[in-house]
């Protein structure tokens, strides 16, 4: 589904994006994500395609807000049956509850359900409408880590099975990584849309880089053109970045590398060839555990965040103060386009 929407209130927005089965819209808080969803649902005044001019009752757009908006005095079954009519309504509602694996709790009221269960009821309810478009507003923000994964699994599966264009709004990079297509909302427009891998590894702007956890971003100047790319001078460091559209020499640029993609050079496995470029001697300043991975802060000619999976740290047993060598593999070095910093 192609979306082209313009909003004036509560903020100015012109969003153009394509919605396939699981499309995630990423953006900072206040960027207008919720407003866009509400506009698509018909609850906020906007102009654009599709559904323009239609009242919310006519649009057949399933909307799942952050609070789930279940009717508190109705049971789960009755909630799901709301969009349904006819004598078979309850039976059909039960089927949808089975789809989200909640049938045994059909007669409970929302107050008797956990957050994750309530969300599944709301999802079943939205699906019962047989909508043309499904909108989900921050479905994982109120959930703990394990429920979050289960929730995203369920959503992804159901949406795929139904072939339902779904737009999911979030500021959680974990959810963004699970998308079929990832779009980023920045400064009132959709700045980038594509494969999550693409967006994560090659964000179009510095703002987007921040959003996707791309934290090692540096400013520099193009030193010279070389085969396949450019050499960039940042402080005392010269870094090789491959590119097909090299900016002119001496142009100011931004470049970066993801923390996950900074390689630690093992003393017993020396590197050679192109990988041997972009090597830096650094010292470990801080080690922070993040779940099952570690984030290292290293300092040297450049300060970098490095993400280490647990098995690597177990092997290397790094500690604060250690001196190590890191390499920035050219294919993981990202050169931001010239409009990136605007």
């Amino acid at each position, binding site marked *: 589904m192609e979306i082209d929407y313009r909003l004036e209130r509560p903020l100015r927005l012109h969003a153009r994006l394509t919605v396939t089965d699981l499309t995630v819209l990423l953006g900072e808080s206040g960027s207008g994500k919720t407003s866009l969803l509400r506009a698509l649902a018909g609850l906020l005044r906007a102009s654009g395609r599709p559904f323009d001019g239609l009242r919310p009752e*006519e649009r057949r757009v399933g909307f799942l807000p952050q609070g789930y908006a279940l009717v508190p005095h109705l049971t789960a079954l009755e909630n799901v049956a*709301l969009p349904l009519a006819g004598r078979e309504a309850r039976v059909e509602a039960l089927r949808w509850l089975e789809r989200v694996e909640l049938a045994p709790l059909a007669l409970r009221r929302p107050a008797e359900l956990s957050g994750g269960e309530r969300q599944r009821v709301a999802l079943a309810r939205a699906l019962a409408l047989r909508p043309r478009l499904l909108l989900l507003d921050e479905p994982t923000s109120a959930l703990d880590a394990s429920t979050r994964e289960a929730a995203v699994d369920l959503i992804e599966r159901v949406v795929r099975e139904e072939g339902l264009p779904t737009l999911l709004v979030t500021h959680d990079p974990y959810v963004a990584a699970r998308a079929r297509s990832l779009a980023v909302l920045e400064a009132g427009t959709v700045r980038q849309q594509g494969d999550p891998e693409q967006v994560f590894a090659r964000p179009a702007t510095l703002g987007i880089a921040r959003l996707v956890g791309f934290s090692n971003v540096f400013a520099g100047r193009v030193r010279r053109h070389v085969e396949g790319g450019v050499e960039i001078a940042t402080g005392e460091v010269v870094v090789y970045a491959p590119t097909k559209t090299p900016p002119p020499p001496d142009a100011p640029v931004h470049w970066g590398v993801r923390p996950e993609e900074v390689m630690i050079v093992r003393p017993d496995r020396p590197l050679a060839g192109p990988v041997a470029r972009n090597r830096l001697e650094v010292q470990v300043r801080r080690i922070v555990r993040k779940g099952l991975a570690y984030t290292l802060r290293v300092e040297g000619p450049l300060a970098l965040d490095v993400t280490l999976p647990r098995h690597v740290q177990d092997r290397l047993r790094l500690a604060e103060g250690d001196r190590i060598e890191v390499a920035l593999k050219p294919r993981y070095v990202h050169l931001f386009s010239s409009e990136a910093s605007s």
Partner: protein
Amino acid sequence: MTEAFLLSFRLASLTALTLLVLGVPLAYALVFKRVPLKPLLEAVLLLPLTLPPTVLGYYLLVLLAPEGVLGRWGLDWAFTFQGIWLGSVIFSLPFALTAFREAFQAVELEVLEVARTLGLGTLKRWRRVLLPWVWPGLLSGTLLAFAHTLGEFGVVLMIGGNLPGETRVASIYIFDLVQALEFEEAARAASVFVLLSFVLVLGVRFLEARWRSITGSNAR
């Protein structure tokens, strides 16, 4: 005594019913719709709360007298049952309105909005979502207005003139008895009153508890 109590009951019932019919749409509009000068409107509607009943009664009496502003337009209701009905409605409006407003405010607007996206038209939304949510609060407000009118004295006395069979409600009847030194009869009538009010307050409390259980513990 029966006549006076029946009159009180009739006045309280009519007032409560009138307030239900007038107050519910008004409260709904105040909570869910954008109304121009809302703070001003709300202040005017809540004014009777702060006015002494005798002041309110007096001004209404003057308006409803044959030469008064309302009287001239055919509403010469001074010293009539309709007059005290009007006075009671105005006097109890703030109580009923506040209770109705609270009931509507407990409704999450988002739920109503999502109900729209699910294809429910206005009537269906009211019937299946809104009314079951608010009815205990609405009923509680109505009962409150009923109880409040039962106990009214100043406004009714001023506008109604204490006419037996027409405007001599139970509260005034008791006052008369005391003035006529009929203390025993007065005490009897007063205890009937206390019993009645007690039953009503119990009813209101029960409804509040019911409402709280429906909307979950997030209310209040």
